[in-house]
């Protein structure tokens, strides 16, 4: 049985198809057409709904893309759709602000925008003023083609002017929630939502052809975009032991099914450069569902976490009914979309060694659009400096090869060399030794090599001028002054 609450009402489903998406379920089964399908791939946010988890006795809500979430992932959760926000003619502050600021034109993206604004509003203290970053973050996964976003940003900032109108009963359904395993049995297939790793291991052993899903932000595309069917689906997003994040003396240890939203605060503490990538990594909706384990296991050459993790010498724990083992991440990938993960195995955890005081991490992402885009190139460099020499260096690259990997020749060119622009320019000449990238929809091979060279130079300039503003993504207004940027003299070679 899959049991969930929809706008406060308990719903039980026993036999839905395992690949039923939440969006399709809402629109075709529950007669709730307010939630829209704009793309079916988690890119536009028109399908955004709020999914609530019980955390320490309280329901906490986050936006998700209902088009690429499977119903079985929502077992024991509480779902709020756009239909659940207003009470009679009394609109929720997110709704009223959108009306008053002229935030809707064609209106098709609007329900999703309203849900994202609602999440922003409800997760903040009353009368909160939002920073620009918070507003961007909340709306990063919602595309609007009509307004140009200005009135929507205005609406975000105006929400505090309206009295709250939350119907508490809808948002806080009965707290005696069952902890049963979830699942559904249909003539076309089965879905399971185990609650323990023991149950998971047994399922993977019993059903070796079952598909494992954590956030579904990649797997669901097989169903919605490639029109493939999934007949056996195991959702691991409710196994508590896979969601823990702990700081040990030597490592940051991240559970395989922890979402990026859950991981982000820990990264901020230990790896702020990695955390800074998060604003370009994916939309908030995706980060609320997607997991680091999934980002690693899907083995995409353009996944953004693996190159950074490789540069940080991360390891992963692979588990199955027959035991567990730790492997270095850079040995995990064999070829395009191929890994050493065997049948019945899953990624239990990721551990990143704590950084030594002398280590510096630099992470760069290049894409056509700054927000919510897939990398043309991702470059991570972990440098240990001793005096003015580079004593150790580890790199990770995405978008440059069939798998995420380090650049050996680049590393060799940097190692034991003086820390200056010239060294990094010389290393740039080695890029094509390490990589023979492809031409594809995101960039040409030539650009990928050139921009990597540019990034290496920029890395040197940033390390030598740590206070300067150096990235356009961090600049919001025209006020940037020349005192705050790197001067031309810095580019002169020694």
């Amino acid at each position, binding site marked *: 049985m899959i049991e969930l609450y929809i706008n406060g009402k308990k719903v039980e489903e026993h036999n839905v198809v395992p690949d039923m998406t939440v969006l399709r379920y809402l629109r075709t089964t529950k007669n709730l057409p307010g939630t829209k399908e704009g793309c079916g791939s988690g890119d536009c946010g028109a399908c955004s709904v709020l999914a609530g988890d019980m955390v320490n006795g309280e329901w906490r809500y986050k936006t998700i893309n209902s088009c690429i979430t499977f119903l079985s992932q929502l077992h024991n959760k509480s779902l709020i759709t756009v239909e659940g926000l207003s009470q009679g003619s009394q609109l929720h502050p997110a709704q009223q602000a959108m009306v008053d600021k002229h935030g809707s034109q064609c209106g*098709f993206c*609007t*329900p999703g925008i309203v849900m994202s604004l609602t999440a922003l509003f409800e997760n903040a203290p009353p009368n909160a003023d939002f920073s620009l970053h918070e507003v961007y973050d909340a709306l990063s996964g919602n595309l609007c083609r*009509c307004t*140009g976003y200005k009135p929507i940003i205005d609406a975000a900032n105006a929400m505090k002017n309206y009295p709250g109108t939350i119907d508490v009963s809808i948002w806080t359904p009965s707290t005696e929630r069952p902890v049963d395993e979830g699942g559904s049995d249909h003539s076309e297939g089965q879905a399971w939502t185990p609650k323990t790793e023991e149950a998971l291991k047994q399922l993977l052993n019993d059903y070796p052809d079952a598909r494992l899903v954590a956030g579904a932000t990649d797997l669901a595309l097989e169903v919605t975009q490639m029109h493939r069917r999934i007949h056996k689906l195991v959702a691991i997003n409710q196994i508590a032991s896979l969601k823990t994040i702990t700081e040990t003396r030597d490592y940051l240890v991240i559970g395989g099914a922890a979402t990026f939203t859950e991981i982000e605060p820990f990264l901020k503490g230990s790896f702020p450069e990695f955390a800074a990538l998060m604003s370009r990594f994916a939309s908030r909706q995706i980060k609320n569902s997607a997991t680091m384990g999934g980002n690693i296991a899907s083995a995409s050459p353009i996944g953004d976490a693996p190159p950074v993790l490789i540069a940080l010498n991360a390891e992963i724990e692979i588990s199955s009914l027959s035991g567990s083992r730790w492997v270095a991440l850079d040995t995990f990938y064999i070829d395009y979309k191929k890994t050493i993960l065997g049948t019945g195995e899953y990624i239990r955890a990721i551990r990143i060694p704590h950084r030594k005081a002398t280590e510096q991490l630099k992470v760069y992402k*290049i894409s056509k659009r700054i927000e919510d885009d897939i990398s043309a190139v991702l470059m991570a460099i972990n440098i240990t400096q001793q005096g003015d020499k580079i004593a150790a260096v580890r790199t990770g690259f995405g978008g440059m090869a069939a798998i995420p990997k380090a650049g050996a020749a680049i590393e060799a060119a940097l190692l034991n060399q003086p820390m200056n622009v010239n060294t990094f320019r010389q290393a740039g000449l080695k890029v094509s030794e390490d990589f023979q990238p492809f031409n594809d929809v995101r960039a040409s091979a030539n650009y990928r090599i050139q921009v990597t060279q540019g990034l290496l130079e920029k890395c040197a300039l940033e390390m030598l001028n740590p206070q300067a*503003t150096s990235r*356009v993504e961090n600049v919001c207004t025209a006020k*940037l002054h020349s005192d705050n940027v790197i001067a031309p003299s810095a580019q002169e070679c020694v």
Partner: protein
Amino acid sequence: MRKLVELNENKRIRPAKGKTGESMKHESAEKQVTGKAIYIDDMPELPGTLHVAVGGSRYAHAFIKSIDLSAVEKAPGVVKVITVNDVPGHTDIGPVFPGDPVLVESECEYIGQPIFAVAADSHEKAKAAVGLAQIQYKELEPTLTIDKAMEEQFFVRPTHQHKRGDAKKALAEASQIVSGDLYVKGQEHFYLEGQISMVAPTEDGGMNVYSSSQHPTEVQKLVAEVLNISINKVNVEVRRMGGGFGGKETQAAPLACIAAIIAHHTQRPVKYRMSRHDDMVMTGKRHDFYNDYKVGINEQGVIQGAEVNVRGRCGNSPDLSDAIVDRAMFHSDNAYYLNQATVTGYRCKTHTVSNTAYRGFGGPQGVITAEQMMDDIARQIGEDPLTVRKRNLYGIKHDSMRLSDGSVDPRNQTHYGQTVEQEVLPALISQLEESAEYWQRREEIKQFNAHSAFLKKGLALTPVKFGISFTVQFLNQAGALVHVYTDGSIQVNHGGTEMGQGLYIKVAQVVAEEFQVDLDTIQVSATRTDKVSNTSPTAASSGSDLNGMAAQDACRRIKSGLVKHAADLHKTSEDKVRFESNHIVVINDEDKEIWTTFPDFVQNAYMARVPLFSSGHYQTPKIHYNRETGQGRPFFYYAHGASVSEVLVDTLTGEYKVTRVDILQDVGRSLNPAIDIGQIEGAYIQGMGWLTTEDLVWSDNGRLLSNGPATYKIPAVGDTPIDFRVKLMEQLPNSEETIYRSKAVGEPPFMLGISAWSALRDAVSSLADYRFSPPMNTPATPECVLNAVNITKSFVAKTSANTK
């Protein structure tokens, strides 16, 4: 009889609320934010509704050798499979010229071109069944690029030319020549609601059609034609679209036609909703253009003569391309007097999906070439681009430039013979350069760039002059239907469609203004071909110009009956009757004002058998264009605007950010300032997206690779500049008699986005101390910007080597 509660007689008399000029909210705003606004896919399905998916060509150019659909027919849930042989009537649904088969018969002309359609009991089952078809092709050589089409002289329509004076001679005599070229890529509409149609058979052998279409009348006509039934048996209803932008002008019809053919065969309701992937692959986009220009200038950089070539990549069929390339030609001057000019427009045929209307309709691709000219001239003569722009504006007289009779050239005639009568831009630009502090920022930016290693700022002001009217003359008409009911409430219907642009609220405001009643007593209703017939598409920015006037005409017809009745009732003359503050006011024979509430008076009129409904019609005056000579007055008037964009470019990576935008737009006397500003802001961002991140990428064999939002990037929230200052030009009523002297606003501000592109070029040009005008095809992705940086750097290296 019941009356509207709102108009209680005890209430104090106050002016009506929501008349024109007030920033009323969108009529659907509350429904949209609560999820109650119904789009076609949200409508309850009738029992037995079938769902459609379509199988398309695998090759850009091929003959079909054989089709075996037996596995498709046997797939789970499949009820009906159709090919072109199942079409009862016309098989070509080209909107203006033939060339668009509803389903391919033998020759496939683009990848994804529909060959067969499957109807199943669910969307998912229909999609799954499509993949089971066995189709054998004989591949043919495709023509995929403008270059190749030009080489082969492969066109969908004949080449057309505008000629004013002798451009060759002017170029030969000019003191300097500037030339350049530009490849402008197309653009996917990416309306958030994909194409959709739902069709149900009627008891009369006809069809009721719900379509997400900007052109219900054309859908009606084409459905009738494919079914071989008369037009009066088909009714098309459009309540709202989830965005259109031109993409639902002709592209909605194939869905309605295919659904109707299946409904005809199965006698069941049929819904055809395209997945985003199918929508991006199977429906037309903005045209790519490859343009070049050569201008002769004087020492001041003022153009003496120009030769411009514009070449549109039309795709496989004419669709609307003739008019689109025409509009690119009409706008290749943008705001500048070309003097002696020859403008030639080519309609290139390629084996790619037929390109179609998109906000600006070819105009933007012409305008950007004119703006490139200005930047290139400025770099060549070493002046600021704004200075050069101002010198070249229409209506700016130069003493040295004289006509053959010796008088100073008024410099106000376009290359197609239309006189620019209302000269708005000189004043508009001077207001904007002041409010945006252009010159001060120009100096600051030069300083910044000199002191910054690889982050460079760029700044540009670009204007827009956009011609308003359909260039196809007969489309410049509209109809409306207004009903006044006995409780005083009013319903208005017209031929225009609502796609988010606020047309319904603007027309409702016109009705409120006419009757001087509160806006909330007026109900807008879905556009239906059985209410107002033979309508024009809601396109060419004409929605409120045409339908507002038609609604006004309908109101005035009703009013004239009411006025006559009031005069008769109070034995006075008609000029003593007026509508004011939700009342009818009559000055009777004793010179006393008699105030009667609108509902009371309407009831009285009804009892006296006065008609309370009327249709209205409008046709745009003054316009004419002779295609033989390429001369005339195709546009009733021009709408103007200008924008200043500032950007920050990372010259190590090519990445950039738009950091500040200032806009001043001429909307005449605004019908609704909030709606107009919304159009302007949205248009700027859409135009910026077209020129920056939105990159249509095709494979070498003609497959669209950027076929979803994961690979095709429209602007996201962070792309909107936080410093975004949009103002309407004040106190400037349209010099032509438009609806309350307002101006169109849908398309003109789209081209304001060009200033972002021009500012990117400016930033890169700073690397060469503004002595070099970097080539920058569009979209200017980071990759494209980095290329421009590299070319500029090698120019600098070369020139400094030469000077050493």
